[in-house]
């Protein structure tokens, strides 16, 4: 098992969510979209995304504000996977499909407070 998969598996145990979906090899394609958990997404966000998207994505900082974004899910997912040269790293190799969708669920859960 790769290091990354071990981390992914650990996330699954901790969050008591769909264990099979989280611990599977990410090269496998799930039959249906994996569960998106905004709480898991929030933890991941604070680990890796909050460094640039400030106040948890609620205000603009190094990266743009995400709360209230009008970008569709597919756009956000693609941006997280492939990044933007010189501005945002590509996380496609780092996160599982379930983690990616949990990040989107977290972003969608943010209230736009007009800041």
């Amino acid at each position, binding site marked *: 098992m790769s*290091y990354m998969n071990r981390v992914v598996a650990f996330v699954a145990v901790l969050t008591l969510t769909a264990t099979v979906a989280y611990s599977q090899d990410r090269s496998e394609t799930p039959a249906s979209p994996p569960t998106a958990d905004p709480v898991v997404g929030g933890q991941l966000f604070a680990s890796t995304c909050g460094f640039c998207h*400030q*106040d948890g994505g609620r205000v603009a900082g190094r990266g743009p504000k995400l709360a209230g974004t009008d970008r569709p899910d597919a756009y956000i997912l693609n941006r997280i996977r492939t990044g933007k040269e010189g501005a945002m790293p590509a996380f496609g190799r780092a996160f599982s499909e379930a983690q990616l969708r949990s990040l989107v669920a977290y972003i969608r859960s943010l209230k736009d407070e007009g800041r």
Partner: protein
Amino acid sequence: MMTFRTRVYVAVFAVVAMGTGACSMPASTTDMTKTSAPIADAGGNDWTTYHGTYQSWHYSPLTQINTDNVKRLRVAWVHHPGKSTRGLQSMPLVSNGVLYYTGSYSRVWALEAGTGKPLWSYFPKLNDDLVAAQTHSPYTRGIALGQGKVFVGTVDGRLIAIDQKTGQPVWDTKLVNSEKLTVGFTGAPLLVKDKVIIGSQGGEWPGRGPIFGVDAASGKKLWEFLTVAGTEDSKKTWGNESWRTGGGGGWMAGGYDAETNTVWWGTGNPAPLYDWSGFEWKTSGPRPGDNLFTTSVIALDPDTGALKFYHQELPHDAWDFDSAVGEFVMIDRDGRKLVVHPNKGGHVFVYDRKDASIVNVWQLAQNINFVKGVDPKTGALIGRRDLPLGKHTNLCPAIAGGMSWNSGAYSPKTGLYYKIGQEWCMDLEVIKTTPILEPQAQLDIGANFTLRNPEGGKAHGHLSGRDPVTGQKKWEVQFPEPPLASLLATGGNLVFVPDSRGWLRAYNAETGQELWSHNNGIGHNGGIISYAANGKQYIAVATGWGSLVGDEFGGLFGEPFKSMAKDAGALVVFTLE
């Protein structure tokens, strides 16, 4: 036999004695048959190592450009490297009439120092997928020169030697498994005798941040020192074997004390960056304990990589105020051999070079509340502000630090140390994230945060000229935003400050009076040097914007930073008209 310090003073006096109109110059601007001038000989016409000399003064003894005539400083030539993603952040080097510098993506150029005429370039082939996944990338902050070679680290974890005359690669050594850890090399290497020393990125990346010693002739790795638990004893400072993912690193070039054969290097912060254990950090949380040798200055034997001694500036750094930033300014005072080192948290540590014992600690940034103070006799932190789970307001300085990674300057003529201070704070929420138990390929932060103005004031920066040992301030200049580039002091009694809005400014080193300025059209976030070629003194500065700290400016200060290009930058070189 003269000591290297004595030789420097002789060089300084020799140039000064020539008067303001004459410098000692090389016979040819393109004499590439010569090898580099010894780094220890410093000054004169060349700038042969990242910090200017092993003494890390960022000082040129040249006097042709001085307080009387600096108003006649004009652009001599410009070189556009192209594809300057995140701006040019590097320190150029000059040897025997040839200027060498590196841009984003570890690309290296050799140019005629007097004209900018390209002589050769070297673009290493990089792992593009890896570079796309990196956060602190693709900038490269400098190179090393010596033994007829140019040494450059790559963002995908290699150290490459290039033939100084031809630009052809001589050897290419993979040192870091960047495909697994994401991090590589962005800092300049340091040549010490026959070895090239380079530190990897680290900090909030869960690895062990090694520093390497490599044979300059063959490229063979000779030693590796792990800045996270590099000794058996130090593993005890990482509870629950958290050293496996501890961060660390040594991502800026250090200094070298030739008299004791000691390399001084600063190390990065531990991972995760913020620690939800708060006050319980000694016994619980993701990394219980002091976390040696993160946020420390370490002294290594360059021949073996063995640790001689160290001082941990912030035990269990809970704020990302690491020691990898800045320079190791080596000076003598009252018979003591000292080294002055700025810490990102905003304090300046003064050490005895024989054993890193504390001589003094003084405060440069004004807005500091992550500690109540630092004991100037012992270096111990007084009144730590640890950050338990939840929200915290007005933590000062902000994550960007009271000082950033670029270097200050020291002038032996004025006896003053010139350094930028940064005044800003932040609100944050510490979050218990999923523990990371193995090295992995992304950041490990542990908080959400927002930069803000200090209470009762506005975020800003300042340049001051101070006694490097006591911190006593002689003069200070305020800036609306912190300048982020390195500084340069010269024998012409000048201090050059490349600022964030794009102005290169020259100040009287004695008084702080502004004497000259020029708009380079984009912010500065890299190096600046002075050198001589064909009888003329030059000032070379890297331009370009877009570092991780600079990225904060749009949100905090608005324009011109919100719309400032982050994919541009050039090397701009000045001389007297």
